[in-house]
């Protein structure tokens, strides 16, 4: 049974048809590379799966059961985590505060819940260590490098026991060495049975870690095949439209 099953997903923003009839299945422990030109609809698909907004039409199922997400917590509660393209970090907060944004650890005092700063800092530090990042939990995100920001965004997906992680261009704007670390992390996650949808414009990244490649063009799925039976040339053709479909 598929972990995630999307069927006939359409999404329009007013006159803009961002997604048209997209169906997609993801198996546990599978890495799916999602590719497409700028504006092809990749981030829109991520935000639908993440519960940021509902599709205009179409259905989703997790473990074969139909699901409807209205808020990001809905998706999170069944193990779907996201690294957003824009990283979705608040510059004026610390790394730890960003990691826990929207799901703060609290200590209860009767009817009141107070932030458990110490527990959050400790946990965030442990996550950064696990990601081999030198990000410090107490530092403001404003003062961080691109790679450290990326680490904060990725650390957030490691808080809960995720089953599917959507990564929207996690390797954009970071150094070669840091890219290698992110790809390494993706492999480790896959080995522990977590499914990953990796969005990237970087062909080598997708071919290095993905099992399957899915190509969107102007909101439509034009290809969905094992990486082993495709090639960077073919995918490039599919993205640009030189190849109609595969």
């Amino acid at each position, binding site marked *: 049974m598929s972990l995630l099953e999307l069927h006939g997903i359409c999404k329009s923003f007013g006159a803009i048809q961002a997604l048209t009839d997209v169906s997609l299945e993801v198996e546990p422990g599978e890495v799916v590379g999602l590719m497409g030109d700028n504006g092809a609809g990749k981030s829109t698909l991520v935000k639908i799966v993440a519960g940021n907004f509902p599709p205009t039409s179409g259905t989703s199922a997790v473990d074969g059961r139909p699901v409807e997400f209205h808020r990001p917590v809905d998706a999170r509660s069944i193990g779907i985590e996201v690294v957003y393209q824009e990283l979705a970090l608040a510059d004026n907060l610390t790394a730890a505060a960003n990691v826990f944004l929207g799901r*703060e650890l609290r200590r209860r005092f009767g009817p009141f819940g107070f932030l458990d700063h110490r527990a959050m800092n400790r946990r965030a530090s442990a996550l950064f260590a696990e990601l081999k990042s030198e990000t410090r939990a107490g530092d403001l995100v404003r003062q961080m490098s691109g790679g450290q920001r990326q680490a904060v965004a990725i650390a957030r997906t490691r808080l809960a026991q995720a089953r599917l992680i959507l990564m929207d261009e996690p390797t954009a704007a970071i150094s070669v060495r840091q890219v290698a670390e992110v790809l390494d992390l993706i492999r480790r996650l896959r080995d522990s049975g977590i499914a990953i949808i990796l969005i990237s414009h970087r062909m080598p990244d997708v071919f290095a870690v993905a099992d399957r490649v899915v190509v969107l063009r102007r909101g439509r799925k034009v290809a969905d095949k094992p990486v082993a039976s495709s090639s960077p040339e073919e995918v490039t053709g599919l993205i640009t439209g030189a190849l109609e479909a595969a």
Partner: protein
Amino acid sequence: MTTEFSNVRQRPWYLHPHLNSQALYVFAALVILVAAISVVSSAFLTTGNLLNISKNFAYIGIASLGVTLVIITAGIDLSVGSVMALTAIVTSLLFRATAEWPTAAVPGLTLAICVTAGLALAAFVGTVNGLLIARLGLSPFVTTLGTLSICRGLGYVITEGRGVIVTGPDVSIFYAITDGTLLGIPTPLLFLLALAVWMGVFLHQTAWGRYVFAIGGNERAASLTGVPVERVKVSIYVASSLMAGFAGILMAGWLGSVPANLAFGYELRIIAAAVIGGANLSGGAGGPAGAVIGAALIEVIRNGLVLSRVSAYWQDTLVGLIIILAVLVDRLRERRAS
């Protein structure tokens, strides 16, 4: 795999956020100013004068706490002065209207009813502001400019432009609470300090408070990660109106009557206090200490001018200069920190 980030550096101790804060800089300015004025005028550092100052700035300070919350979310609330007036007017009118009610027999009950009703009205104005801004996406500046005018106008309509004298069954309790002293400290100042402490705990120790900062820092990020942006924003505008309304009620107790033009133009001083104290209009920064210190600074300047026999009309000019100076210092501080 080993990592080395050459761009990770330890910051020097004097740039630690606690020390390199706008509130602390402004506090230093306040101390210097107090020292300077006390040299010029021997009347300044007398207990009577200090109590007088502290009472005067408490009203601005309380409203400024609320506006600071709004400013942290990158919003603005221009309606606070009018809300102060409208709340004070309605509360005092209710005092008279309920004088004949059977509730008057129970000491304090009339007071509780009237103050609750007044604050409910303030909360209503805040809810309208919040919904228009957070749900419909109207600009905070224009929306609250509108409610500024609506509330001020309603105040004139209800009173026909005349003042309302505060009388009623519980009036002595009312004065004791709003204009009394506790352990020698004026109650408005105690209210200010209590609210400031509450706000500090709220902002830094609760998730809701953290959302306020997150929204000001990056509203899109906050909403993507599932922060209930709309509800937080509405609650913040309600809090701002409530604090303004409460300050208005305290002023009614101080004056003993509510002129229809109560707190006219106060929004500028209230916002100035918040900004001087380090609230950043582009959002994401600010706190209760800054609002209190900013309000104190403005009042010390006014009082100092009076004592130095300089025309009090210089106050606005000086406050304007200090606002610009504060923003300059804020900018320099930021540059040094990054």
